[in-house]
């Protein structure tokens, strides 16, 4: 059983304070929505939770069966989607998933990768180079990549970015499925996405 604890997080760049004293706990089955004005630090907060950015003060702890997971290992228990992330454009979608399976230490299984592509509505374009994908298809592939290792913690930064209504339905299904086995943090200003959250933290307040 996993849990996430964020304690008094504060982040500033030079003189600019992004946010301070952010604290919360998250347990399996819970969805937390983070909202706030542009530049309020939503994406940065997600990146800190993922271990990609150091906080100015405070700490993030993730627990597995009561034991704290070291920061360098924590990243690998996290699945993250963000607008700033890109996948390898010179590879096909299937090759991207194959690559991320292998570097994450998952025994590569073409069938389960194809299953993941089907789940995100990309199975017909599995062998197409990513550079030929539309922005919505790229977003779907990012979702597939983030889910490959069944992460206990799913961080979704603007998950509906570039998605059509079918794509939004896929996001909704992913969040529902994640409720059954893990935790989700969504950063967004879209009402529909914020509404998925059981709790909301507004960084502009």
């Amino acid at each position: 059983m996993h849990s996430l604890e964020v304690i008094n997080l504060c982040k500033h760049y030079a003189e600019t304070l992004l946010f301070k004293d952010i604290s919360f706990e998250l347990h399996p089955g819970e969805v937390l929505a983070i909202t706030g004005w542009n530049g309020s630090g939503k994406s940065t907060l997600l990146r800190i939770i993922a271990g990609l950015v150091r906080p100015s003060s405070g700490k993030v702890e993730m627990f597995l069966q009561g034991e704290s997971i070291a920061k360098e290992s924590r990243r690998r228990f996290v699945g993250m989607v963000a607008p700033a992330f890109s996948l390898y454009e010179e590879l096909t979608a299937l090759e991207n998933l194959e690559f991320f399976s292998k570097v994450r230490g998952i025994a590569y299984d073409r069938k389960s990768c194809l299953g993941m592509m089907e789940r995100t509505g990309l199975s017909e374009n599995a062998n197409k180079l990513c550079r030929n994908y539309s922005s919505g298809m790229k977003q779907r592939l990012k979702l597939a990549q983030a889910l490959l290792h069944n992460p206990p913690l799913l961080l979704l930064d603007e998950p509906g970015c570039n998605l059509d209504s079918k794509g939004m339905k896929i996001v909704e299904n992913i969040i529902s499925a994640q409720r059954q086995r893990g935790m989700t943090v969504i950063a967004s200003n879209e009402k529909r996405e914020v509404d998925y959250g059981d709790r909301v933290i507004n960084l502009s307040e």
Partner: protein
Amino acid sequence: MKSGRWITETGSSTYLSEAAAIWLRDLRGEFRTRYAVNAILMFAVTTLIAVSFSIGSFRIGEAEQPFLYAVLLWIILVFSALSGLSRSFVKEEEAGTMDVLKLSARPQAVFLGKLFFNLTLLGALELIIVPSFILLMNYEIKLPGLFTAMVVSGGIGLGGGTTIVAAMIAQASARGALFSVLSFPLLLPLMITAIKGCEKAAVGANNPGWPEVRIAVAYSIVMIVMSLFLFPLIWEE
């Protein structure tokens, strides 16, 4: 604190299998885009042709040939490497794939994967440039075994040095200039040793124990081991 090897539901992975996945991905990407290969080969071939036409064998005295040819060969190899090997990390930053890679792979596996990729490129470069140089310059080598060992060990050291510098400069602005400026002092001892070794191989000098090859091997080992320790610090924010 739980920090050991990450084991998934379906199996476990080692640094080497993750590094191999990164190496193969880079090779596949390079095969399709040819960014680094084009940069390195264009530089190497044009320099080689310029050198062979302007200071070919007819302009250099026989006594000076072993030393001067060794200098020219290593200048071509080192600067060709500098023109393209930074791409291994820079392309991750430019393409926006760095963060996903940070989330997915362990730092040491990333370093090893990139090192293997750079060594593959350097191996290919040496396979093309060294025989061409020997043919075009009419470069006579009395001890081919020593010469080959020097080129191989020097190439490994060159790969190790450039890979860690490429990682350091990937997130900086003015990367191109920084890469050359930081790499040059780091590679200078290796370059001097390699030149000396190649000169001895050409002259056929009595050279028991191949000290230059041993120095280059030691340099490569130190560079790669130190980089494996340092890289996680560079890889973090």
